[in-house]
């Protein structure tokens, strides 16, 4: 357990000691504040928006159709290189000739990717909460907090799906570029619905759980439980593929 903690610490430092991490975090905060400023400017004109506090604002904005999309993109870009860059720098050898299993090393990297995604989600939430507080007031009812939390969780799950996809592609191809391309292309498929029954078993229409509260199931027969199972199966597949290859691969 201590070993794993230290491995995760290593991975976290590799992320945060890079300038690009802070550029992403600041960009996320700026987008959060910017979006809030624009929303508040137009909310006077369209009073029907129903936002009366920063918290209710958050519950509308944290999902994949709002700021969750940006958090996902930044997380995909930020974590694509987490395995691939080790190969590019040659540091994979540095990493693998230690008294740690390859499985442990990949696990620490996946956890670091999750932490990165969580960090981006929190930066988005925090920047919009503070900006939203000035725009709409800081108060919020308990029910609103629950809604906001749920929206944040849905946004996070959405990010997680594509970050996992990106992580697997990066592990399999050892290419940061291909991993970013794969992850971002995936997010674009989310908006496309093919009205055939098989499509409900595809990853993309299931990724955004918030639709069940907002506009209803993307395809008939889909429920939030169904989507969660589909997502879990896909993510398990991605990870199994990544682990199998990473553990067995000859490092030239």
């Amino acid at each position: 357990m201590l070993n794993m903690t230290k491995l995760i610490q290593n991975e976290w430092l590799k992320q945060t000691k890079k300038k690009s991490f802070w550029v992403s975090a600041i960009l996320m905060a700026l987008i959060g504040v910017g979006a809030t400023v624009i929303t508040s400017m137009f909310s006077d004109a369209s009073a029907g928006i129903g936002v009366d506090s920063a918290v209710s604002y958050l519950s509308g904005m944290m999902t994949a159709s709002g700021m969750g999309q940006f958090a996902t993109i930044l997380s995909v870009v930020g974590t694509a290189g987490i395995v691939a860059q080790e190969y590019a720098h040659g540091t994979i050898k540095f990493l693998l000739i230690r008294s740690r299993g390859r499985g442990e090393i990949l696990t620490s990297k996946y956890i670091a990717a999750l932490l990165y995604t969580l960090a981006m989600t929190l930066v988005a939430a925090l920047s919009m909460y503070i900006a939203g507080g000035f725009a709409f007031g800081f108060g919020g009812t308990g029910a609103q907090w629950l809604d906001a939390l749920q929206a944040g969780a849905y946004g996070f799950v959405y990010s997680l799906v594509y970050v996992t996809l990106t992580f697997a592609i990066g592990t399999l191809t050892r290419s940061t570029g291909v991993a970013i391309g794969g992850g971002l292309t995936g997010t674009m498929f989310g908006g496309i619905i093919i009205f055939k029954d098989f499509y409900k078993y595809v990853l993309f229409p299931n990724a955004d759980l918030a639709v069940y509260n907002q506009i209803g199931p993307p395809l008939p027969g889909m429920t939030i439980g169904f989507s969660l199972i589909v997502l879990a199966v896909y993510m398990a597949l991605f990870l199994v593929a990544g682990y199998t290859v990473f553990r067995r691969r000859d490092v030239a």
Partner: protein
Amino acid sequence: MTLKQTNPPVLKLSGVTKRIGKKTIVDGLSFEVRGGEIVGLLGPNGAGKTTAMRMMTGLIRMSEGDVTVAGSSIRDRFKEAIAQVGGIIENPEFYPYMSGFDNLKQAARMTDSVTDQRIAEVIGLLGLEEAQGKKVKTYSLGMRQRLGIAQALLDRPKLLILDEPNNGLDPAGIREMRDYLKQIAHSEGIAILVSSHLLSEIEQMCSRVVVIQNGRLVTERKLGGREAGAADLPELRIRVDKPEEARRAIEALERVKLERVSEAESEVTCLAADADMAALIDALRLAGVTVYRIAETRKSLEDEFLQWTGGNQIA
């Protein structure tokens, strides 16, 4: 020397083989390295040196055979085996955007026992005090090489595997590295396996060489010592005033073998055992030949290497 005979092998390769598709890159390689020994792994380009070193460190899988480090198999007990190994495979690679110290910390977090005190000790050993706070991307290749040795030594390994440790070092750096490796092999009893293209360097540093070609062991040879057998008699170049007379005198000697006579340089070359030196000198004196100089012509490692490997290109 007697100590080395009794030291148990730290590194042991038995029948190590790597096949990729139909190609056999390393073929049934077996040899040992004992504690306190520096062994050179030599071979022409593409001989399989780096592939062999990658198998020893578990970076690539063996098709057949096994490698044990201090008794633990790299195949079956990887973690125990690799915990005894410090290595640089090809170039020492680091995270360029982190400082030297942070890179060592990264390595230390992947061990069970390395403390900050040990990191400081290793930094001191390799003279990295000034450089440790700077980002690795600003390091020269020589500095990176030293940092590589530092990370390899962190966890007090029993075995160092160094692929081309002199890459990018200047002559002073090479000498420093050589002295340092000799010192740690001697004082801490670490077994060291190095590969290098600089044969003269191997010659000065190693007590033994293992030569491989096309993935197979060609020869295993002690350096500095001499093997028994006529072919290994020392070759002597004798400068004299009358080479023709000298020739006749030497030819009359039964146990001394004349190699050639050079009138132009006024020299005769012959093979003679140490025990026959007195007889040789007496014979020359009695023949009225004045001897100006006797020198042993030693074959350099390079000559021998080319002989072993059939003159393939080295570099």
